């Protein structure tokens, strides 16, 4: 996707801080599918995804002043808000760790297994990319990014020593980056 067509990053930031509704609308049109994707993935297709997305965008609108350019692009900041909001909800629903894991393994078995011919075409490119990761690498990334598990939790759940979690996580992400940048 090409986001630079209409506004530069600086114009977007400035516009958002100046509470420009046109900019807000642009940010919604261009980034909401990605943010919604994160929310849906964290909450396991929970029906509340739309409401959560709404809250996320209201936070983006209200907290624009808290955005710090030195920490990353605007989209990265928006992603963080979406992920953190969704994970807070996941936790407040008193999802136990075991339950999170259950969902992950379900995901691996049901949706993104190595052969996912029956998935909708939207996800075809995605599943192809995932084929090149091992099941463990996929689970690591999912647990860390989409379920907000800490290193200790991952170590306990996957029964890997804590020191190994870091290295494997790094390898998984390196592998993912290789695939993404091919």
């Amino acid at each position: 996707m090409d986001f630079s067509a209409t506004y530069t990053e600086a114009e977007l930031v400035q516009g958002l801080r100046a509470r420009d509704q046109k900019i807000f609308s642009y940010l919604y049109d261009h980034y909401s599918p990605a943010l919604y994707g994160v929310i849906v993935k964290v909450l396991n297709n929970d029906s509340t995804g739309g409401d959560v997305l709404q809250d996320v965008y209201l936070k983006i609108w209200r907290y624009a002043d808290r955005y710090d350019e030195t920490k990353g692009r605007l989209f990265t900041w928006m992603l963080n808000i979406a992920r953190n909001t969704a994970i807070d909800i996941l936790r407040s629903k008193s999802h136990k760790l075991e339950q999170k894991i259950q969902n992950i393994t379900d995901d691996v078995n049901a949706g993104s297994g190595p052969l996912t011919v029956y998935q909708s075409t939207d996800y075809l490119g995605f599943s192809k990319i995932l084929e090149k990761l091992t099941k463990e690498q996929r689970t690591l990334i999912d647990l860390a990014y989409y379920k907000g598990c800490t290193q200790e939790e991952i170590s306990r759940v996957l029964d890997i020593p804590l020191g190994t979690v870091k290295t494997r996580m790094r390898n998984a992400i390196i592998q993912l980056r290789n695939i993404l940048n091919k």
Partner: protein
Amino acid sequence: MDVQRYISSGILESYVFGLLPESEQGDVETAVMQYPQVKAAVQSLQLDKEKFVQLYACPPPAEIKDRLLDILRREGTQEGNALLPQELRVPDPVSNKRIRETPVKQLNGQKKPSTDRIWKYVAAAFIILLLGSVFMNFFLASRSTDYKSRYKSLIAAREKLEADKEAQSLTSAGAEQKEADMLKDPAFKQIKIEGAGEQLGHVVTVCWNPISHALFLMAQVMPVPPAGKTYQLWAIHNKKLLDAGVFEGGAQMTQKIQEMKPMEDAEGFAITLENKGGSNSPTMNQVIMAASISR
């Protein structure tokens, strides 16, 4: 600090993918400010994370945008404020003040009424309270039983869903494993059988492993067979046709992997149209499609 070592330690990956506890995030952010190399590494990781997340993108329900813009339009007003999530709401000083003032006025207005009248008011108030309480009792009692039944039906629905899910995962797990093995094993040969003439445009792909002898089939483009008929797959070996089992066609089967009978040797595959249930020997004038294995 050894910058290269820091970059390759894995801490930056953990930081960008949200794996670090808050206490350690600050350390990384300090390093980003201090060392341009670290900053560049983090930025490129963030870009890749953005790409990764985009893979999961899916369009949200259409009405959300209108709802958002509506909230922004009414943002300054009191009811607009009420639409915001709790943590974003501006505290409302006006309504608080009103609540505090009201009782004071009432006390001032009721200066020194005669004792008679006070008792009349008190009695009336009690009667109203009593009636209200009786009414509320009925109301709440009926409501609570309603909740109970709704709760029960919710529990039942949940249990049913869970049972369904379990049954589904049991049946699909075996098949998935076979499919996974099939993809991983380089020994598998894919033979595309394309129709010609009357069968033009029809496609079946056969996956056969000469080592393990496993045989699968995907009827990618095959119509539903005529009533009372079925498709049957045959392996061609030494100019003979060996039964490899029957399979289904139709739109629902296009992406399903159908497991066929294991086959030890084959030079090619043929498809016939047989009577329902399949046949022990092929009806030769019903061979509709065939392909040989390229070696």
